[in-house]
């Protein structure tokens, strides 16, 4: 639960950087120009194990190859979130684990604001999009309440689906609730890292620990 709350309190920092490509040689027949208008840079600021909130842009310094960049701070308060809960329903989740992680997911939903959207993806070896992102969190709660536990664990495929299908106008926050390791995905860890790096989505994990 602590982990889930920390994500909601995190800040999003956008660095505005214009980086046009170098001028092309005139002899070349094809020219493409592109520029990067803005880059999201995520910062999680903590003191000890507690998040620091209410930071201003002046509290940050961002260097690109040693050159300071113009910063604009986009706090979570200023933009509605699109959160996608990716929930492990494999056999090993049966019993207390399912209950504990469902409680964590409920707590996460309770921390969202009315304008924030939430969706739910459940997975075992199969991946099921149970609730499309919606501001009506009751729908997600109902879907959460119906989750059972059976089958193997395809974490990477489920995260891939959540990241790929949640891309849109709003930046997505993907929160994985799981107790274990992947054992049936088609994609591997490296594949997923590539997809996550190319995406603007933020991915966090809420795990189950017996001693917590």
């Amino acid at each position, binding site marked *: 639960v602590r982990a889930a709350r920390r994500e909601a309190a995190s800040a999003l920092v956008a660095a505005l950087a214009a980086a046009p490509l170098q001028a092309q040689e005139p002899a070349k027949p094809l020219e493409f120009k592109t520029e990067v208008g803005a880059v999201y840079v995520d910062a999680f600021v903590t003191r000890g194990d507690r998040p620091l909130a209410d930071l201003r842009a002046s509290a940050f310094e961002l260097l690109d190859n040693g050159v300071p960049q113009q910063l604009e701070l986009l706090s979570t308060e200023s933009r509605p979130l699109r959160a996608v809960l990716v929930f492990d329903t494999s056999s*090993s989740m049966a019993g207390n684990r399912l209950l504990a992680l469902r409680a964590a997911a409920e707590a996460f939903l309770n921390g969202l604001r009315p304008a924030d959207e939430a969706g739910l993806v459940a997975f075992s070896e*199969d*991946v099921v999009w149970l609730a499309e992102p919606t501001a009506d969190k009751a729908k997600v709660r109902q879907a959460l309440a119906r989750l059972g*536990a059976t089958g193997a664990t395809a974490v990477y495929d489920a995260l891939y689906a959540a990241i*790929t*299908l949640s891309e849109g106008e709003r930046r997505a926050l993907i929160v994985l609730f799981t107790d274990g390791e992947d054992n049936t995905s*088609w*994609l591997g860890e490296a594949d997923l890292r*590539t997809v996550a790096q190319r995406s603007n989505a933020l991915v966090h994990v809420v795990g189950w620990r017996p001693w917590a």
Partner: protein
Amino acid sequence: VFTRDVYYELIRSYARGERPQAVAALGAWSERDLARQLASVEDAARALERCPSCPNSLAGLPLKAAVMLHWDRDRAEQPPPEGVEQPRRCPGPHATIASRFAHVLARSVPQGDFVRRFFRMVVTSCQWDACFDAAERWAGEAIALYPLDAELLLARGSVREESATLARESPGVGVPGSVEPSAEAVRREGWKHARRDLEEALRLDPGLGLARLRLGRVLWRLGEPEPARKQLEQALPSLRATDHVYLAHLFLGRIHQDAGRLDEAIGEYRLAVALHPSALSAAVALSSALGLAGDADAGRSALRQGLESAGQRRARDPHWDYQVVKAVELESLLDELYREALE
């Protein structure tokens, strides 16, 4: 009363079809009583080997039923636990007795390939239950009996491929003074063993398409994409099951993708999707390759189509079955063995 006559009658009642009663009654026998009966059966089998013309004291004892009775008892004593993803129901003492009966059967009576199939069933069952050490041990025992059985070598190769693929980092790795190998080293070693089994299976039976399919995948895992590709392309014409053809296209696609040949990869993945439109693995593979090729919209569309079938799939995804061996195969093997044991 735990006498030989009672024991033999128990086995005969199982063969007559009174399976649940016989399995339950066997539970009353102590290890000591069973050991005595088993030793007497093994002595009789040895005596018969020495003197084939002597009276056969095992005549009338349905040995196949004895094998299956003890296997059933073994399973009955280990009900599948709930809330465990990989339950590890490794064979217990009754499975060992079943194995000893199988050895007697292999030596003393014309029995077709019942014993081979029994061992293959146990290996498959162990693999299904993620009991890899036992699976390898049982496969080794069976291969010692039948060194020219390509199916048994394929079964062991499959166990070794899966157990290596699932190897995880041990906590001791990296600790000063520790000699534990890294997970990567364990994986490579396991895949090398799997490769040897699969190559030997193909040497014995070059038409064994599933062995070639697995060999292709194992070579890819070992970082040998071109030999892997050759095996998979060679396997395709010999593969009869749609699931295996699907897997060959999926695995070939991955080899192309890794080599940067995204068009070829997408082509292979599309062939896989066409064979199993509801299988998630091909949908994810195609979607991911389309994304890498820069067509994010088509990637999303392919993924959506795959997810639309979720929860309504009539058949399991062949890729899931490939990784954990096909449970359906285990059931059909068991059905065959029961039919023969009850004849």
